[in-house]
């Protein structure tokens, strides 16, 4: 679906945000990219829809090179992006008008936009707020509107650039549930950039970044069973995986790759 080939991104004279990153994003998968602030994960995300162009190497979306300006619009049609600050990505004063903004840009006929907007609002459970003003909504609700705005454009990939970072726990939960549903029910490819390890557990694959480099990729089970290695990079394990390691250290017989509360509970009760 999306292919990053030795992508290096430099800014200014000295700055280097990405160092020769290669990554393949498969159709239909849910990929989590984790890392600290300044690890280059957001820079990587902005390469996926041609907001940033690689200094060296290449990014191709279904064969389209992001460097070719003629491809830009088509790439952005396929790769939708939701950002961190919910306030700074809503454009108009009425919720449904905002959801319609993307489809309007694509030049879709009015009747179909209306249909898409209704469906998108339903998908994120915000139908009753269709005529509300964005500034009256909570952070989580605003972020759901932003996702609806993307769904209405019917992209094939949804990139969430730390979209839960500014939300309260409840808002974060709401957003994560929708994202997981979009991935499972609509089969949409999801790329989730986050610094919360807990969120990475729900992904199919985790990519860990540090200092602009991709240092680990694998399933959550693989990545989170390498606690020592993660810790040596200054990253933490999800709470459940930490508990698992403590229990193993305490002499309990628990599989080394248990990462959900359910798995852990089953192992303990066995």
């Amino acid at each position: 679906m999306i292919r990053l080939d030795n992508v290096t991104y430099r800014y200014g004279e000295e700055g280097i945000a990405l160092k020769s990153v290669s990554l393949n994003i498969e159709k239909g998968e849910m990929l989590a990219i984790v890392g600290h602030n300044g690890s280059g994960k957001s820079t990587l995300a902005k390469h996926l829809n041609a907001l940033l162009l690689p200094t060296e190497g290449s990014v191709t979306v279904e064969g389209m090179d992001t460097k070719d300006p003629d491809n830009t619009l088509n790439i952005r049609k396929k790769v939708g992006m939701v950002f961190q600050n919910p306030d700074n990505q809503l454009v108009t004063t009425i919720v449904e008008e905002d959801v319609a903004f993307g489809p309007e840009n694509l030049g879709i006929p009015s009747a179909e936009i209306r249909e898409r907007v209704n469906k998108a609002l339903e998908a994120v459970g915000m139908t009753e707020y269709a005529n509300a003003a964005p500034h009256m909504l909570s952070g989580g609700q605003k972020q759901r509107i932003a996702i609806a705005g993307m769904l209405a454009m019917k992209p094939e990939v949804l990139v969430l650039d730390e979209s839960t970072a500014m939300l309260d726990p409840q808002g974060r939960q709401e957003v994560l549930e929708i994202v997981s549903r979009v991935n499972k029910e609509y089969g949409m490819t999801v790329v989730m950039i986050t610094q919360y390890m807990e969120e990475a557990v729900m992904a199919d694959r985790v990519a860990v970044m540090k200092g602009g480099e991709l240092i680990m990729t694998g399933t959550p089970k693989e990545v989170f069973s390498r606690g020592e290695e993660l810790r040596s990079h200054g990253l933490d394990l999800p709470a459940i995986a930490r508990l698992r390691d403590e229990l193993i250290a305490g002499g309990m017989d628990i599989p080394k790759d248990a990462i959900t509360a359910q798995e852990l509970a089953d192992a303990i009760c066995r």
Partner: protein
Amino acid sequence: MFKDITLGQYFPGDSVIHRLDPRTKLILMMAYIVAVFLVKDMWLFLFTALYAVGVTLIAGVPLSYLIRSLKPLKFILIFMFIINLLVTSTGEVLVEWWIIRITTGGVKQAVFITIRLILLVSGTSLMTLTTTPISLTDGLERLMMPLSRFRFPAHELAMMMTIALRFIPTLLEEADKITKAQTARGADFESGGIIERAKSMVPVLVPLFVSAFRRADELAMAMESRCYHGGEGRTRMTVLKYRRRDLWAYLSMVLLIGLTLILQAVL
């Protein structure tokens, strides 16, 4: 405290007037201004005034709202009244004292100008009272569309207005937050003269501007991600459409202007 701020002076409702096409209301407002200026005899204001009152009643807007919109203009109204009273010197002299000389013609002229001003303001207020800012923007964009052939940036202007409307509450909220944060650090916004108070606003305005630029940057990125590429090839979800009620509205205005012109000519 800024959360419930209403923009402009929109009075929510669902009357025929509210549902009129914003283009109709914009054009009628301009026509109304013309109608008011056409009046040369004071008593003919009766019809233009009745028209405004009629629209107010149909729209279900309380008259007090209309009067409130005149409040900020009270000084201008008084000023215009006095100037006209003193400058005009036709007809009989009523009062003469020192350099002041008030004549019947002066009184007449002063009243005439004041009524005219009140009607002009009420007419335009009626439009903003019954139209949401966003549909007003829509209407303006559509009305200016023919001008874009001459490279007039109709879509861009409308987009700017939309974004401004969207971010005014957000920035007000932020200004409130910054004010509180600076107060907590000992900033004093309440004492001192005008100049000192204006100076004390600097620690609020600087962070506000910095943040506004940051927001603009992020918004631009979000808009690009949503395939925004100007007005070209863009469609709209809600398309403005003239209905029968718009025709009636136009007819009522034709009637008002016609009546004014005919009565003016006859008398």
